């Protein structure tokens, strides 16, 4: 009988450990998902920002060319 109680205790402890491990692995998975989504979101927003910035730079380049022409003509 004492052996049986020991086995039951071990099994219960193992179940508790497994639940704990499950919680930890689930948390790790959520962290990884969050990191991926955060990275994706940030990169997409930064890409949009970069695109707008590039467009602005091109327009400024155009305006600079325009102004340089105006200065040359002035």
């Amino acid at each position, binding site marked *: 009988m004492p052996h049986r109680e020991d086995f039951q205790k071990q099994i219960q402890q193992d179940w508790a450990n497994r639940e704990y491990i499950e919680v930890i692995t689930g948390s*790790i998975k959520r962290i990884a998902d969050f990191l991926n989504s955060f990275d994706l979101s940030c990169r997409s927003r930064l890409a949009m920002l970069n695109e707008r910035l590039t467009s602005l730079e091109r327009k400024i380049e*155009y*305006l600079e060319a325009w102004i340089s022409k105006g200065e*040359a*003509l*002035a």
Partner: protein
Amino acid sequence: MPLPVLKVEPFKVSRGLLPKGKSVPDDLEAVANGTLSKIILQLSFLSKHATEIFTGLVQVATDISDRSKNLKGRIDVLAVKVNQIMESTSDESPKQECINATPCQDTTTFCRHFVSETSLQPSYLSIPECISIPPFQITTNFDQQVFSGTSMPPGMLKIHTKCDTLPPFEIIDPYRDDGKDGFTFYSNPSYFFDFWREEMLKDTGSSGRKFAAPTSKSVDTGDGIISKKVPKRASEMSSVIENNNSPPNVPKTSDKPVKRTSGRVSLPPPPPPPGGKVGGINSSDSNFPRPPSFFKDQKVPIPPPPFMEDIDEYLPPPPPTPTSGPAQNNFPRPPADTGKPGSFPGPAPPPPPPMGSSMAPPPPPTGSSMAPPPPPMGSSMAPPPPPMNLSMPPPPPPPSGSPADSGATGTKQKRVIQAPPVDPRSELLNAIRGGIALKKVDPSAREEVKGSSKLCDVTAILQRRVALEISDSDSDTPPASDNEWDENE
């Protein structure tokens, strides 16, 4: 197949063998401990990847921040320059002062006022003055080498470095009879570009015959068919001319050739020409008609980047002065995008379109005969042929003489424009006729530049093709209009 950038290892945390030979008091606890240790390993990997992710994000954000600061500085400098030019302009012509006397906060709006103001007072410069204007050099190269090792994410770069090294083909290279590099048979990244280049060169080489056929057809067929056969670009340009009585919107029309070529032959997208707004000067506000051959040549140069089209919405066109020729030369050109800004020598002759500069030394008046025009890169050494175009005898006047009557077909409209009653560029023509000594072209240098640009420059190949098409459309239109002229008579 998705390529994992970041891997969190180990994958199977609960699988593991108990240590052999050692008595473990509690097997289940040992397995749980092994699982926990692997979970800690996973967490360490995760933290490392998180560090990489945030490092990359911070790097990109820092880059954007730096560019934003730089852009803000440029905008400030630009605003100061615009203010100076506005002041000088208002001093010269107080009556044409901008409505918004206060400096506009928006640079675009400000420049619109500036342009609308300057367009009211067209001033024509002589050719030496045009040449003396230094060309505008673009300072930024946009989106260069976007798929290279430097732009690769660190995780992917790590996987890339783990790849097997290339076999040592260089050992057998000396024994090859054909002299080719052995690596090209293993991996040749430039294969498709070479293939496309050969196709384009072959196509441009035989394009003279290709484009000649529709011309003869259009002459033989009836009137309605003629109007269909007329190149779309030419008809559109003629309609724009008719509507505005001014040169067409250059960027839009210059955009056409690229689209047409891409429709006919599967062209890879050309590199985005930064500031390819060379053709972006739009003279729709002007009241001065221009011989089509003149501005047609001018629009040849560069297909503007598609993203620049929207800038026309709020960037009004410059004045239609002949100085727009040098001004266009001042703008950055696509080859600068290819990382060869040095290939553009300093002042280029104003009116010479790249096509004209590439032609054989005495260029034919129509520019349609077929020395394939080299890229505009050779504009430094080639003398300006455009004077030849300008000195062409004017076409016969239209029977009706009124532009409104000539709205039936595009060619008819074009003919009307070709015979303007008053030529506002008489000063320019006089300057051209009055002893502008054309420089001798060095054939060897031209061939050298031509060959080098032909070999390795996407922009040069595309421009050569576009120039060929445009020159062909120039040669297309006159027979059709002549035919129609005869029919009307």
